[in-house]
């Protein structure tokens, strides 16, 4: 039996269409596999981070310090330095995107470390600028009495509408009971 030209063209086009379909199908399969891999990786990286935190910073002595920034009318933070007992130091420089994220309500963990039970000195140096472009550098010192268990401290930078300057404060939100 001989195929007519039309039939031959039809068969050939079907072969190519099927090849295209197979390609699309393969892409779909890969997309499903990728989603699964992404989810798995997220879980694995999270588990590893938890383990590292549990081993390196046991809950009994763990101290986490976060930075929270108000709308930043009078101050834009560019750098923060955290120092515990004058030894344990952590620094963070903020790029434009990070500064904006802070001003829009984001909080950043600026310190993760260990502290024994008892009184500790926390020194924080805030560096940045005001609206006129003046450089502002302010160091604050606070003392905290560490009890057993995880400590979470929040450093707040808020606008003071009376003095038209920033106010710096700290608050222990976990571990002060």
């Amino acid at each position, binding site marked *: 039996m001989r195929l007519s030209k039309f039939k031959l063209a039809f068969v050939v086009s079907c072969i190519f269409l099927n090849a295209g379909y197979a390609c699309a199908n393969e892409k779909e399969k890969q997309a499903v596999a990728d*989603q699964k891999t992404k989810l798995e990786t997220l879980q694995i990286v999270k588990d590893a981070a938890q383990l590292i935190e549990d081993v390196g910073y046991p809950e009994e002595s763990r101290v986490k310090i976060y930075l929270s920034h108000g709308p930043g009318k009078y101050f834009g933070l560019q750098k923060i330095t955290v120092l515990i007992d004058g030894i344990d130091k952590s620094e963070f420089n903020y790029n434009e995107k990070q500064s904006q*994220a802070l001003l829009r309500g984001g909080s950043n963990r600026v310190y993760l470390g260990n502290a024994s039970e008892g009184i500790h000195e926390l020194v924080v140096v805030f560096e940045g600028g005001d609206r006129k472009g003046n450089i502002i550098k302010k160091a604050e010192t606070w003392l905290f009495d560490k009890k057993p268990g995880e400590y979470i401290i929040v450093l707040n930078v808020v606008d003071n509408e009376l003095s038209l300057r920033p106010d710096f404060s700290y608050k222990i939100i976990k571990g002060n009971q």
Partner: protein
Amino acid sequence: MRLFSLIVCFFLSLTANANEDEVSKLLLSEIMFQRMQDNNFDAITHYLNSDDKKEIQLNENNRAYIASIYLNYDLHSQVRNMLDLLIHNKSAKIRDMSWFYLGKLHYKNKRIKSAVDTFSKIEGKLSPAEQEIKHIMYGVMALNNANYDTAIAEFKNVSESSVFLPYVKYNLAISTVKKTRDFGQLTKSLTALAESKVVDNKLSYIFSDQIYTTLGYVLLQDNQLEKAKQYFRKVTLDGHLATRALQGLIYTLSEQEQYAKALNLSLQLIKMTIGNEAIHHAYIVIPYILQKLNDTEKATAFYQHAVEYFSEQRIDLKKYITKTKKGEFDQYLLDLEKIINVDEWINDEEMSRLFRFVSTLDEWRDAVYKYNEMKYLEKRLDDSFYELVIIEADIKQGNRARYKKSLEDIAASKKKVEKSIVWHQKYARHFVIQALQSQYDDVTDYLGQARFALAQFYDREEQKENQLAIDKLRKEEQERLNKTQVPVGKKQK
């Protein structure tokens, strides 16, 4: 005494709840901090970590926010899981917000019908920002489906204060001309848009160039040649539409019979390093203009030059195809950093040609994005591996099993990631080769045109020479005849 203890316990539990609430808010704001830097990976791991430790309490709004992070990270099953809980919520506002995100998810997956169905389930009013996005998505979907009336209506619903207004107006003008074929109206709309301050000041040059180039061609078609020139000249010289705009300007000048200027520009155009359609075309246009300027000799020489140029291009393209097949260009074509900083290496002619060829392909961009996403996962797995190795000595017996499992999980996941990387690499390469092959076919076409024009030219020249020779022969014959002819009235001896 018992009553006193109960009261103390009650107040203590209140304090604990207050603290838990503060911690939850803080952790959410930390997730926001990551999300606002487009760092979806860390935003999700922070969320998963806090969720594991039950430190985070999600209300409906926060749940929708987390769903939006999953949506941005293309983890659609997670988005569905989170939103499925919300679409049955008692509050109509929460339900609507969930339908909105779900609609967006379908839209992102190009499931247009499902997106429309989902959006139609929204009962009340969305927030102005969500409403605006919905109109734009509906408009684009309608435009893609050639449903121009709906597209026009949707685009008209977007408020004048929208940040997307220039894009909306552009799409509105395109939808209108597709419906009415009224190019006069299109000219008016695009001119108004091109003249608005927002195009000059706030838009990226990529979009403003698109407006100016489209408008230039529309005006050229409408025979408003002076105005067309004005807009072609506004296009950024190092932008992606520069050659198209120059080509438009050359057409316009030719229409105005300003051949010398058109020639000058064409010669500039072919000097641009980026080899594309406009430049190929210029190689055919230049000898045509030279003929118009009656410079036949140069025209012939340029046709010859064009034949050589296209022949070289064909050889180069074959070379690129082979190199791409061997993976020699992968370091450039799959590296997102390189693509973002394209201007730093685009001076390399070979690379620039290749990049320009493929960068317009959606499929290629998609493959590169996915490839880089997988590369990032690979990096994160490696980082976790090394961080774990560093703490190995500190691992106590209680955590040994966790440690071992973590390392095993990393190794297993890395295999999958590597497999995916290879897949996307091959897929991206496939599109590059396809694009190069298409360029090769185009250049072959141009080579044929140049050869044909040259042959015609030689043919005409040969005909002319033949004609001259024939004329000369005829003249000589005539003269000979004149000499041999006996004058009337004289007798031959």
